[in-house]
C-alpha cells in the first residue's frame, strides 16, 4: 500500500469508528477497552530514511478523539502521578473525546509550556502510560492510552491556530510583579520550564543561553525528523509572551560568573540548568582517528548547524558509507538514523547487552529497524583501526554474554575471550553518555558536587550556595526531557519560596 493510501485508510477507519462510538452514546469501561490503540500515521521507512522530514505525522482529529475515548477516567488518576509535571491527563483526554480541543489544550498548558516537544519526545511508556490502567489490563504499557500522541495532536492544532492570521493576539495575563529578578542558566527543557513557572509567579526572568538559538538538547541533540526545530523555536519563544527575556551567545561561567549575576547584576536567585557536559569516550586505541565522533558532535553538526543540508550549510558533516554507533540509548538511535539520512548505506548499532536491556525507547528502536539500521547485540569495540591517513577503516569488536544483574539491575555483560571480530567501517559514533560540564562548577567553588561533577541539590532543587538552584542533566547526570522539566518545575517552587522569605 502506498503511503497516501495507508494514511487515508487510518483516517477513514478512525472516522467511522468515531461515528460508531458516538452513536452508542455513553460508553462502558468494557466498550472503551475494546477500542484498539490508534496507529501513529508515519512516513514510509524507505522514503524517510533519505529525508529529514518528521517521521511521525501526528494523529488525525478522528484518531485523537477515538484514542481519548479509550481512557477509563480512573478516579485516582494514576497517569498523573507518572507525569513529572503533573499534567491533568484524564481531563484533557475527556475534553478531547468530547471534541473540546481548545479546552483540552488549555488544560495541558496549565502544567506544561512545551507540549509539542513533550508529545513527541517524552518516554510516555515509562511515565504516564506506565501507570495507565488500560496498559495494566493489557499487561503492556505500549498499549496504554497513547497520551503523548493526543498531547501532540492538541499542541500542533493549538500552534497552528495561534499562527493563523485571524487568531486573536492576546499576550498571556501578567501577574503582579514580585520585584525579584531570576537568572536561568541554559534554555533547554529544564530552564524553559522553570522560566515559565517563575514568570507566572510574577518574577522577572532572564534566560542565558550559550548557543545562538534557544532550546538546548531539543535544538542541538534531537534530530529534525523526530522534533522539527521550528516547533522548538516556537515553544521557546512563546515564553517571551510571559515576559521572559532570552539572551543567547552568553556563557555563564565565562562571560559572567554566578557570583556576578547575584552580586553585581541584581538577580535574587539563579537556576543552573546547563545540561549535558563533555562526551564520554571509551578509552580504547584509535579513538583519536579521523572519523570517530561523539554523538554530541555528530548530532550538533547535523541539528544545530544544519550540516545535513550539505548544499546550504557551511558546517561540514563527515561523509561515510559504513557507520557503527556504539551505545543503546535514544541518542545512539538518533545518531544512527541521522547517519542513514546523511548518506550512509550501512549503519549498525553495536551494544553490549541485548535488545531487552537497551535504554532507548521501544518506538525509537522500532523506527531505526524499519529504516534498515542493523543491530549487533552483545558486542563492544576494543579498538578502532585507521588507514595510512589516520582515517577510520575498521573497528575490532568483542562478543559478550549476559551474566548476573549488576548495580543497575540489568544483566551484566561479560566479554567472551577470543571472540574478537572486525567490522569494516568508515566512521563511528560514540553514544555512551556525558560527563558533567565543568564551566559553572569550576567558577563557583561554593557549589558542592558529586565525585562525577554533578551539582548536589536538596528536595527543592537548592544547591549548597544560597540563592542558587540547579536541575536537569547537570544534577541528574543523564535525564530525559520530561525529568529535566520536572526539575525545573520543582526549582521554580523552591526559588519562589526562597525569594518570598528573603528581605527585599
Amino acid at each position, binding site marked *: 500500500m502506498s503511503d497516501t493510501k495507508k494514511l487515508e485508510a487510518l483516517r477513514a477507519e478512525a472516522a467511522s469508528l468515531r461515528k460508531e462510538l458516538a452513536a452508542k452514546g455513553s460508553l462502558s469501561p468494557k466498550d472503551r477497552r475494546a477500542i484498539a490503540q490508534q496507529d501513529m500515521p508515519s512516513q514510509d521507512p524507505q522514503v524517510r530514511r533519505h529525508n529529514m522530514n518528521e517521521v511521525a505525522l501526528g494523529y488525525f482529529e478522528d484518531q485523537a478523539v477515538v484514542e481519548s475515548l479509550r481512557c477509563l477516567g480512573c478516579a485516582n488518576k494514576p497517569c498523573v502521578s507518572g507525569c513529572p509535571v503533573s499534567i491533568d491527563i484524564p481531563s484533557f483526554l475527556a475534553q478531547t473525546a468530547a471534541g473540546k480541543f481548545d479546552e483540552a489544550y488549555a488544560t495541558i498548558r496549565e502544567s506544561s509550556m512545551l507540549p509539542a516537544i513533550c508529545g513527541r519526545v517524552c518516554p510516555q511508556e515509562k511515565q504516564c502510560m506506565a501507570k495507565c490502567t488500560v496498559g495494566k489490563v493489557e499487561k503492556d504499557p505500549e498499549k496504554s492510552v497513547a497520551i503523548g500522541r493526543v498531547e501532540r495532536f492538541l499542541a500542533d492544532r493549538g500552534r497552528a491556530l495561534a499562527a493563523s492570521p485571524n487568531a486573536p493576539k492576546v499576550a498571556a495575563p501578567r501577574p503582579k510583579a514580585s520585584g525579584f529578578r531570576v537568572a536561568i542558566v541554559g534554555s533547554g527543557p529544564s530552564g524553559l520550564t522553570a522560566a515559565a513557572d517563575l514568570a507566572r509567579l510574577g518574577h522577572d526572568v532572564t534566560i542565558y543561553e*550559550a*548557543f*545562538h538559538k534557544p532550546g538546548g538538547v531539543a535544538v*542541538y541533540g534531537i534530530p529534525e525528523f523526530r522534533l522539527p526545530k521550528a516547533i522548538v523555536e516556537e515553544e521557546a519563544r512563546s515564553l517571551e509572551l510571559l515576559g521572559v527575556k532570552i539572551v*543567547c*551567545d*552568553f*556563557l555563564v561561567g*565565562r*562571560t*559572567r560568573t554566578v557570583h556576578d549575576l547575584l552580586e553585581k547584576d541584581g538577580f535574587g536567585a539563579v537556576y543552573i540548568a546547563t*545540561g*549535558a*557536559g*563533555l*562526551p564520554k*569516550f571509551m578509552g580504547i586505541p584509535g*579513538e*583519536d*582517528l*579521523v*572519523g570517530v*565522533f*561523539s554523538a*554530541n*558532535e555528530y548530532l*550538533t*553538526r547535523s541539528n*544545530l*548547524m*544544519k550540516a545535513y*543540508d550539505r548544499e*546550504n*550549510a*557551511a*558546517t*561540514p*558533516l*563527515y*561523509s561515510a558509507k559504513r557507520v557503527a554507533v556504539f551505545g543503546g540509548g535514544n541518542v545512539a538511535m538518533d545518531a544512527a538514523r541521522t547517519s542513514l539520512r546523511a548518506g550512509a548505506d550501512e549503519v549498525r548499532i553495536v551494544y553490549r547487552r541485548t535488545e531487552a536491556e537497551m535504554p532507548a525507547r521501544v518506538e525509537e528502536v522500532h523506527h531505526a529497524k524499519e529504516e534498515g539500521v542493523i543491530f549487533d547485540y552483545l558486542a563492544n569495540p576494543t579498538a578502532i583501526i585507521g588507514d595510512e*591517513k*589516520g582515517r577510520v577503516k575498521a573497528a575490532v569488536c568483542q562478543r559478550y554474554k549476559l551474566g548476573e544483574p549488576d548495580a543497575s539491575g540489568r544483566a551484566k555483560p561479560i566479554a567472551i575471550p577470543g571472540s574478537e571480530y572486525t567490522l569494516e567501517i568508515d566512521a563511528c559514533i560514540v553514544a555512551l553518555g*556525558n560527563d558533567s*560540564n*565543568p*564551566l559553572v562548577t569550576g567558577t563557583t567553588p561554593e557549589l558542592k558536587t558529586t565525585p562525577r561533577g554533578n551539582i548536589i541539590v536538596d528536595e527543592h532543587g537548592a544547591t549548597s550556595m544560597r540563592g542558587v538552584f540547579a536541575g536537569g542533566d547537570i544534577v541528574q547526570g543523564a535525564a530525559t526531557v520530561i525529568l529535566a522539566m520536572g526539575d525545573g518545575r520543582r526549582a521554580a517552587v523552591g526559588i519562589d519560596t526562597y525569594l518570598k522569605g528573603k528581605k527585599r
Partner: protein
Amino acid sequence: MTKILRKERLSKDVYRMVLDAPAIARARKAGQFVILMPDDEFSERIPLTIADADEKAGTVTILFQAVGATTRILAAKEEGQSLAHLLGPLGRPTDIKKLEGGVVCVCGGIGAAPMYPIIQALKAAGNRVTVILGARNESLLVYENEFRALADELIVCTDDGSQGRKALVTEPLKELCESAERPSEVIAIGPPIMMKFCSATTKPFGVHTVASLNTIMVDGTGMCGGCRVTVGGKIKFVCVDGPEFDAHEVDWDSMLRRLGSYKEEESHKCKLVEAAAALASQATLEKEQVK
C-alpha cells in the same frame, strides 16, 4: 548581533576587526578566544583568538587570515555591518606569573595576534620577554612594531629572508635554549606544525613549553568533544581544558591528522565561496561599466 566598528586589511589575506562586545571585553583575559558566526542560519561557528580588548570602550579585537570558506565570508563584511553571533570569552586564561629566567614567546604568522595580550600580561607581571616573530615572508609579518615597543628583545625571521633573519623560528629558539640565559618558559602560538617543532626543539633542554591549540570546534562550551586532543596520553578538550597545554605532552601527529578531517568538504565550500565572490565582483565591475 555584534557590530564591526573597524576593519583593516593588514596584508593580502590578513584582516583585523574591532568588534562592539562589552561583555566579552570586560570578562576576557590573555589567552582566551571567541566563537563567532558571521551570519545566521547555515553559517558556521568558528573559534578565533582575542587579539586585544578595551574594557572602557567595550571592544574586542580579532585578527584572522581569510583561508577557509567562513573566514572569507567574514573578510567580506564591512565596517558598520554586523556578525550574527559572538560568544566568549572561551577557554582558560594563560597562567601568568613572574618567572626568574624570562620567557620566550614564539609566534608564527597571525599567531602574533593572540600573543600580544599574553606579552602585555607577562610584562605587567614583571617578566623579561623575548619574542621570536616568524612568517613565510615579509608581507605576512604582523605586530612587529607593537612587539618592538613591548618586548625586551625581538627576533624577526622569515622563511625567505625578505625581512629579518632567513630562518625558521626554531633556529633562534634553539640558540636561546643553548645560551647561558636559558628561558624558564617558552610559549608558542602559530601553525600547528610550527608549534610541534618548537616543542621538539625545547624538549631536549627540558624548558617548559606551552602551546595554544586551535583545533576543530563546534560549540566551544565543553559539549561536543570535537576539539579533543591527546595530552599526556589522556583525552583533553581544547575548549574547556585549554587552549594552552604543555607542548611536550601533546600528541602532535594525532592533532595534525584531526585538523585535516574535513579537507575535502572544506575545499569544496571554498570553491563555492570563491565562485560567489567572483560573481559578485563581476556584478560590481558590470555596474561600474554601466556608470
